[in-house]
């Protein structure tokens, strides 16, 4: 049972990190380049929703990080949860392990992000960039807690860089879906020609961002597999390999939906009645991709608990 909760805590943590970073990539790269009013984020309601999403992501990062710390203490020491809090395990984890140091750094970055979010005044470029960098920093730290961190030497350094790129690309794609869906909702309730033009630009730019993000996920995923998989036999012959296959299948399903969005639905935007139907379909598909993304994060949470297929095959 602790393993199930530990995988869940990890999955939520990664998903919340990706959501936070992805939101600010979306705001700077996608919304920021669109014609007014979207580029000014003039819609007060939409701005409030983005801000609420940022706060909820930070809260989930904090809560899931705390849960991960406690459950990790249980997994490492094999003691009950109540004992972990009373016998110094949490202190030892935080002060004496790379995992704990990484969590402390992430907590500090999250605190700075919260202070920035709480600052009064307009949501300007400098603040968004700072929050994007903080989000990227928190994501990068997550790579230091995975299998890549355990590999010594230059191979380990390379794996950490690749893992960080992998996570950031996932954040740009999956983390941008909910902000995109919120933008669809705002555009649907604001039947204004200027909004429609801006909305079309947003959708096309997100499609391009998604294209490059998926490509990066694929390339870095292949490199990661080279580090962690010992040939095709280990994909079916180890638990790690089977879960990785599940992740690949979910990824391909999400890519298929993204392909439909880019090639079929996005070109119909701004063209009369077809545009309205395409907008509804894009919103639905964005949410569907997000559900698949949640499933991918769950599998990531599980994969982190299993020995890489290469190690499992060597052990047998």
């Amino acid at each position, binding site marked *: 049972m602790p393993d199930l909760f530990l995988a869940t805590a990890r999955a939520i943590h990664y998903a919340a990190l990706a959501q936070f970073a992805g939101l600010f990539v979306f705001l700077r790269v996608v919304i920021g380049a669109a014609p007014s009013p979207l580029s000014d984020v003039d819609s007060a309601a939409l701005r409030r929703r983005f801000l609420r999403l940022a706060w909820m992501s930070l809260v989930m990062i904090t809560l899931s990080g705390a849960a991960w710390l406690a459950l990790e203490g249980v997994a490492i020491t094999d003691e009950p949860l109540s004992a972990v809090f009373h016998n110094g395990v949490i202190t030892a984890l935080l002060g004496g392990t790379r995992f704990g140091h990484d969590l402390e750094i992430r907590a500090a970055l999250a605190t700075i992000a919260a202070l920035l979010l709480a600052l009064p005044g307009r949501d300007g470029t400098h603040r968004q960039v700072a929050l994007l960098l903080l989000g990227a920093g928190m994501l990068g730290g997550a790579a230091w807690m995975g299998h890549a961190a355990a590999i010594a030497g230059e191979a380990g350094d390379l794996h950490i860089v690749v893992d960080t790129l992998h996570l950031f690309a996932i954040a740009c794609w999956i983390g941008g879906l909910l902000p995109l869906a919120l933008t669809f909702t705002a555009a649907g309730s604001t039947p204004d020609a200027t909004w429609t033009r801006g909305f079309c630009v947003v959708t096309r730019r997100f499609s391009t961002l998604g294209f490059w993000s998926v490509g990066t996920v694929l390339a870095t995923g292949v490199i990661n597999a080279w580090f962690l998989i010992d040939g095709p036999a280990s994909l079916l012959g180890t638990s790690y390999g089977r879960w990785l296959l599940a992740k690949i299948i979910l990824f391909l399903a999400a890519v298929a939906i993204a392909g439909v969005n880019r090639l079929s639905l996005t070109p119909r935007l701004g063209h009369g009645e077809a545009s309205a139907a395409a907008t509804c379909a894009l919103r639905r598909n964005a949410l569907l991709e997000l559900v698949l993304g949640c499933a991918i994060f769950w599998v990531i949470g599980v994969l*982190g608990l299993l020995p890489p297929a290469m190690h499992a095959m060597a*052990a047998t």
Partner: protein
Amino acid sequence: MLRLLCRFALSATVASVGIAAAEAHAFLDHASPTVGGEVARPAEVTLWFSEEVEPIFSGVIVTNAAGDRLDDGKIVADPHNAQELHVPLKPLWPGVYKVQWHVVSVDTHRTEGDFSFTVAPG
């Protein structure tokens, strides 16, 4: 917004399937004295692992055939190699000794194992 987030949380939960039990990560790569080897009286046991380990959650016990503990209760991490642990020993008499180890790798996974070595007479 809250409805959407609840839907996603539910989807993430529904998407979960049976989870495999956690397995070993940091394996013992080699040791000194070697596994099953015969040596003159060693002053310490050194263990090298396949991954970097966290000494604060790791432990090594060395016992003789009678079950008496012959290490001094400390493990010393190598300052230049996070995959290496040193275990100082009390003076050993000729005989067979068992080394029981458990480590936690830096990616937080616990492994354990044991091996034996022999201290030769003379």
